[in-house]
């Protein structure tokens, strides 16, 4: 079976999970949470199998095409969602995260399949795959923190506007949302820092000039700084609650920008490596 089959399966599982989540919004009942968890876990499993098959059968660039990036992003978000839902039962999170995954996967299916191509200079390096994995796990945690931040702002709005019906039908407490978002940021920050260090090392190895001024790297560095500020602000008690949620939203926009922008070591539209990589790959 092709990886696309498993991606389709994952998309169906996420879509069903999203449906259950929408239907049960505000009803913090165990069966609905368990069902959402089971569907999301099915999606993650299907995606893991699909990604594994893809990596095994293609000798393509690892995770440099749009389709691969979207697959990995959806996988990372799915993994985070499963972890968070099973650990802290954040009801309502599925209504944000699972549709997001459906959209990401649908977009991935529209993207061109990269096909088989031999490994080029950068993705032949042993640090490349861990770098990509760390970066995407970081993105996943940041995006999940963003979804929790949106829930926080919504719950706070309902409490402030005294809309009790929706508030009382099972929204998690503001404190729980804030704490869970903080945990996601801590985890995402750790992965993202590792990814940045690995990326810096790769740039050094391939002697990319001024890599830290490349638009993608600039966006990544600013993202890293925003989340650093958010974490330090939490520790000092200055960035919590609504401000923390708003900071995470800004961080999430930067995450999106970082993902969209091209990598300095990425092959061009014709599949040719950048000059630095070609230079290094020359015998």
């Amino acid at each position, binding site marked *: 079976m092709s990886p696309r089959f498993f991606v389709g399966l994952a998309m169906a599982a996420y879509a069903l999970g999203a449906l259950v989540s929408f239907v049960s919004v505000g009803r913090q009942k165990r069966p609905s949470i368990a069902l959402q968890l089971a569907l999301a876990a099915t999606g993650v499993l299907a995606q893991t199998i699909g990604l594994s098959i893809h990596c095994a059968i293609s000798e393509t660039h690892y995770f440099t095409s749009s389709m691969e990036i979207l697959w990995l992003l959806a996988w990372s978000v799915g993994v985070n969602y499963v972890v968070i839902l099973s650990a802290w039962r954040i009801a309502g999170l599925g209504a944000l995260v699972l549709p997001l995954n459906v959209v990401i996967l649908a977009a991935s299916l529209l993207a061109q399949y990269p096909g088989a191509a031999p490994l080029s200079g950068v993705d032949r390096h042993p640090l490349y795959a861990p770098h990509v994995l760390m970066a995407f796990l970081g993105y996943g945690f940041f995006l999940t923190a963003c979804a929790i931040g949106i829930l926080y702002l919504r719950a706070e709005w309902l409490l402030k506007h*005294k809309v*009790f019906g929706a508030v009382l039908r099972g929204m*998690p407490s*503001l404190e729980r949302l804030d704490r869970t978002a903080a945990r996601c940021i801590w985890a995402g920050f750790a992965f993202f820092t590792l990814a940045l260090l690995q990326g810096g090392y790769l740039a050094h190895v391939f002697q990319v000039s001024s890599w830290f001024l490349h638009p993608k790297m600039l966006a990544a560095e600013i993202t890293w700084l925003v989340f650093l500020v958010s974490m330090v602000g939490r520790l000092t008690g200055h960035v*919590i609650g609504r401000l923390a949620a708003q900071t995470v939203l800004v961080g999430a926009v930067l995450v999106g920008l970082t993902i969209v922008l091209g990598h300095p070591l990425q092959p061009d539209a014709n599949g040719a490596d950048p000059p630095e990589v070609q230079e290094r790959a020359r015998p």
Partner: protein
Amino acid sequence: MSARWTFLALGLSFRTAPVSLRERLAFRASELPRSVTQLREQCRCREAAILSTCNRVEFYVVGAAEDAQLSQKVRAFMAAHRGVPLEQFEGALYEHRDGPAVQHLFEVTASLDSQVLGETEILSQTREAFRAASEAGAVGRCLQTIFERAFGMAKELRSAGGVGQGRASISSAAVELVERVFDDLPKHPALVLGTGEMSAGIVKSLQSAGVTEFLVASRSAERSEAFARETGSRCGPLERLQDHLRVADIVLVSTAAPHYILTLEHLNRALDARHGRPLFIVDISVPRNVDPAAHDLSGVFLYDIDDLDAVAREGREQREEAASRWRPRLAEEARRVLNELQDEAPDQAARRLIEQASALRLAELDELRRSGTLDAQAIDRLEHALAHFQARLLHGPLSALKEAAREGDGNAAAEWVERLFRLPTPQDESGPRELGRE
């Protein structure tokens, strides 16, 4: 319904009688076993239980179906036992029989008939009534089955039915809102300003929800201390209000002051020192003691008595909706339980018919043996013939009973068999039996 026994539920509740009447007819828990014994003796009923709470006094009685006076006897007992003339409370009494009576008990136990729908206390009160009746030896198979099923249904309904969901009182509504802001309640200290009765209720609800640290501040040190003793809180001077606001995450305000005790200035200063930690304020004073504009401050959640009432109303509506979903299910379960219990009538009638025929046959044979007119061999042959005769004679009625039971008409058939063969009823056999356990 044709039945050889009947289940009667008779009583009055907050729906039909004022508290002034209910309190005169109520039974103390300690006197329940003795009262149940007296009830059984005076009403000559098979099984009995008395449920007496602040909201209801109810009698659950299993008696002979043909006892047309059962209800009157229970009413007379009630009047005589409590010393209240029947005419003073007869108008407030309600009465249910068989299926509706079982359903009523199910609804009472499941708190669908309570003043605060979904409250939990009634279940333990019903258990207590059942325990007292058991202690008095007044619980037989009928009450045992019906009460145990009532407890089971109440438990099922609470866990799955949503009747206990939502907050239906002001104090629980306050807890509900606190829980929407804070997760780990033991870590959040509470400040109580004012020592009214309602404050005490909310403090107790917060304590039940997990808040452990309370600081009481009031203009009167005496009242503060008394309140602190009653609620297990600490006292603090009202003059240090600003310091208290820096530490407390939950503030409950309920004073008789005609002006704002917590102004925007107080709260702005407190927020500066709180580093963004949310402050939850409940102001149940009328007139209000906290500036309503405080709710607009970032990190401040202020709710007054009307807000709490809105939450409680929502909770009540939620519970009422759940209750209306469950009532038909309880009615169906009541019918099922009653049918199960009554389906045994044909079996019992068959057993008694065989026992009576065998007893008559053996008695005749004994008489023959004593008379000495027949030798042993002839008596043996006769014994064999009579047994065969008995089996052939009873085959018809027994088959008819079985068929009737299959067709759902077992009780009526059992009743006819008993009449035709003049079978003794259980009451004839033992009078008001000792029915500790059948």
